[in-house]
């Protein structure tokens, strides 16, 4: 069920990116989709009663077996960390394209930006 809510969030972002006319709204839709995918990947690695994948002193003294059987999945966390930072870079690129288009055409409305020649 949490997976379905996450998928609903993704679909809201897709609707925003497809239907809206404002360029910044399209960027916001793409951001919402990124959040949904990141949340979904982290949820896949979660287990009930799990601990964060950080070994502290008490766990070392109690033995590694207990940590291995109770830690959440560290691999999606490492990859999502990369994805979050890259999403910031792509956001900066998209917003700079929006600002430049606004300077040239004076609007964010994509139906009025018709003079797209090479």
């Amino acid at each position, binding site marked *: 069920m949490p997976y*379905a809510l996450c998928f609903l969030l993704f679909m809201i972002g897709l609707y925003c990116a497809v239907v809206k006319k404002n360029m910044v709204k399209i960027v916001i839709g793409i951001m919402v989709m990124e959040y949904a995918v990141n949340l979904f990947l982290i949820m896949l690695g979660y287990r009930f009663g799990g601990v964060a994948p950080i070994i502290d002193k008490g766990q070392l003294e109690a033995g590694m077996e207990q940590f291995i059987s109770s830690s959440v999945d560290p691999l999606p966390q490492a990859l999502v960390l990369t994805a979050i930072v890259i999403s910031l870079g792509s956001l900066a690129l998209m917003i700079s394209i929006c600002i430049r288009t606004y300077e040239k055409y004076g609007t964010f409305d994509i139906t009025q930006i018709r003079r797209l020649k090479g």
Partner: protein
Amino acid sequence: MTIIFYILLLFIIIAAIIAVETRYLLSAVICVGAIGFGASLMFLFLRAPDIAITQIVVEVLGLIILIRACLSRELTFISGDREFFAVVVSAVIIFAIFLAGIKVLDTLPDFGTAIFAEVPDTASQTYIGEGLEKTGAANIVASVILDFRAYDTLGEATVLFTSIIGATVILRKKSKKLLEDPE
């Protein structure tokens, strides 16, 4: 415990709907901030503190970039969608994809079961079991991104660098002048 996840997810979804449907760009950007901080709390409860910290930092920077895009612009409240027929067709198609995707989600194990622990010899189990001995890092996520999969991090740095170069080139004033009068 699961009720927290439902509350946070509903909060995120409501914020997303407001961000999509509001007329004013600044309100939409602030709602994106609400989505991001809700997601950060959710990461914290999903036992991923590294991602929660990174999400907060990235969220603040992203909000600054987005607000920069819509401050001091006129016409920031363009309302209205595309033609009615196109909106209805897209909504129907997206709803159909949603229904099909719900069926796919049924094949996954329930939320909260450790998928990686049930398959023998997954990479995650190796990282958890031998990460401390092999890399000496107490934080397994740090040992994965900086040692086991360091090339991923190198690629991430390359992509970030490339995108920043692209943004700088697009925003530069000089190139426009050169295009207009070549001498």
